[in-house]
């Protein structure tokens, strides 16, 4: 007798041959969820200034190292005072885009104050996204993104980050991915602490962002020259420019580079 309890009550291999898993149409592997991003968007960068927030992201959708899609929107306005910037997996981003559209539709339904007092505020949008991101990670089926929500709420600039793990944080400057390493230090030269926000005007902040987009285009291999930039100003409202490109680049040194850079002759 087979003393292995696992075999008890089962058709024996001697009689019936080895069990064929295909019969039950069962896969040899368990169901798999997203384990890695496929088409990706690179950094989203953002900064607070005395009258609002600025957020920017380039327009590239990269398939590994292939610059696959060159005109992708990654900045999404929600209502009149919120912009959501998304980096990471583009298909997951498009899913989030749908969630945000649904959120707006839902808010406009049966809501007499939808256009003013009860319109969507940045913190509402953020809390919802953070809840979705954390729930998905807890189901081990993450949305592979890092998101920055920028806006103005109750006259104050709003900026908060959430990623595929559901980790959230706020800071006067925020950047995802490569930008966290390259743009943040540059932006923090302008607004290092909360008290600096008051001293920084729109133009200063915008120049800093443009400079960062340039540096990122120089050094991030998966970035593109074209980018979008949104300003959410407490007086001017929301402006979104989709047709910007990195300007004033200096490539003069390039002609002198020999080999890998250290070569002299």
């Amino acid at each position, binding site marked *: 007798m087979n003393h292995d309890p696992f075999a008890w009550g089962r058709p024996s291999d001697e009689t019936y041959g080895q069990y064929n898993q295909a019969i039950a149409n069962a896969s040899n592997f368990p169901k798999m969820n997203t384990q890695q991003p496929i088409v990706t968007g690179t950094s989203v960068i953002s900064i607070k200034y005395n009258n609002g927030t600025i957020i920017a992201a380039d327009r590239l959708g990269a398939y590994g190292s292939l610059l696959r899609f060159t005109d992708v929107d990654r900045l999404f306005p929600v209502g009149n005072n919120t912009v959501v910037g998304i980096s990471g997996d583009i298909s997951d981003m498009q899913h989030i885009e749908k969630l945000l559209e649904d959120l707006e539709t839902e808010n406009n339904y049966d809501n007499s104050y939808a256009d003013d007092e009860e319109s969507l505020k940045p913190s509402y949008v953020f809390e919802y996204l953070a809840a979705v991101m*954390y729930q998905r990670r807890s189901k081990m089926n993450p949305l592979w993104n890092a998101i920055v929500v920028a806006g103005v709420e109750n006259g104050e600039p709003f900026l908060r980050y959430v990623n595929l*793990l*559901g*980790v959230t*944080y706020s800071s006067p400057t925020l950047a995802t991915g490569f930008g*966290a390493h390259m743009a*943040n230090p540059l932006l923090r030269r302008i607004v290092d602490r909360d008290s600096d926000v008051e001293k920084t005007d729109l133009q200063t902040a915008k120049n800093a962002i443009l400079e960062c987009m340039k540096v990122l285009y120089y050094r991030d291999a998966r970035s593109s020259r074209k980018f979008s930039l949104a300003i959410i100003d407490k007086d001017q409202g929301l402006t979104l420019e989709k047709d910007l490109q990195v300007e004033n680049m200096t490539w003069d040194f390039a002609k002198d580079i020999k080999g890998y850079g250290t070569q002299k002759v």
Partner: protein
Amino acid sequence: MSTIASEYANEVSNTPIEHQFNPYSDNGGTILGIAGEDFAVLAGDTRHTTDYSINSRYEPKVFDCGDDIIISANGFAADGEALVKRFKNSIKWYHFDNNDKKLALSSAARNIQHLLYGKRFFPYYVHTIIAGLDEEGKGAVYSFDPVGSYEREFCRAGGAAASLIMPFLDNQVNFKNQYTPDSNGKVKRPFKHLSIDEVIKLVRDAFTSATERHIHVGDGLEILIVTKEGVRKEFYELKRD
């Protein structure tokens, strides 16, 4: 055994290497709770990190939950926030169900054990500390492991620099390894509760030192203090390097 793996070496397996999504991360930071005679403090730095990046220099992680209970869950920040959110909610419904009765700290501790153990097989990756006053008005600190095992203590450090701060606390709060002068190391220094001012000095020293030695600690120090008058907040700058 050969150090170079060849196709024939026995440490080479044929099963494919699996890359799995890792649902956790470490967001650094450190926390510290101390109970006094008739007060308790819970302090935490305000730096938020992932790997070597500083995400934020001011992201508070010690919270006032009402009912003179303060809480912090340090480690994986998303789990920490989720736990605190759930605990606050638990208090809210406790009030609805019990005619706004104040939640005792000991009950809060037991409740948190259940929140943590409920996720025993997918744990909240956090070191949790709560502080407040017990039913007799004495300062109390409870600390928890990630799956809900808990204990009431006089003091506890948690998070990234816990191992740096805890021995300091043993010595300075519980007077471990301290002996009365002229006793030739025979008579232990008797235990005595510290005053609020002494405790805040200790906490500040602990955090400035931890900031020096630990890269995930710094930027700001937020201390929440519970007395019979209620909850009070204090903030001190820490080094930002």
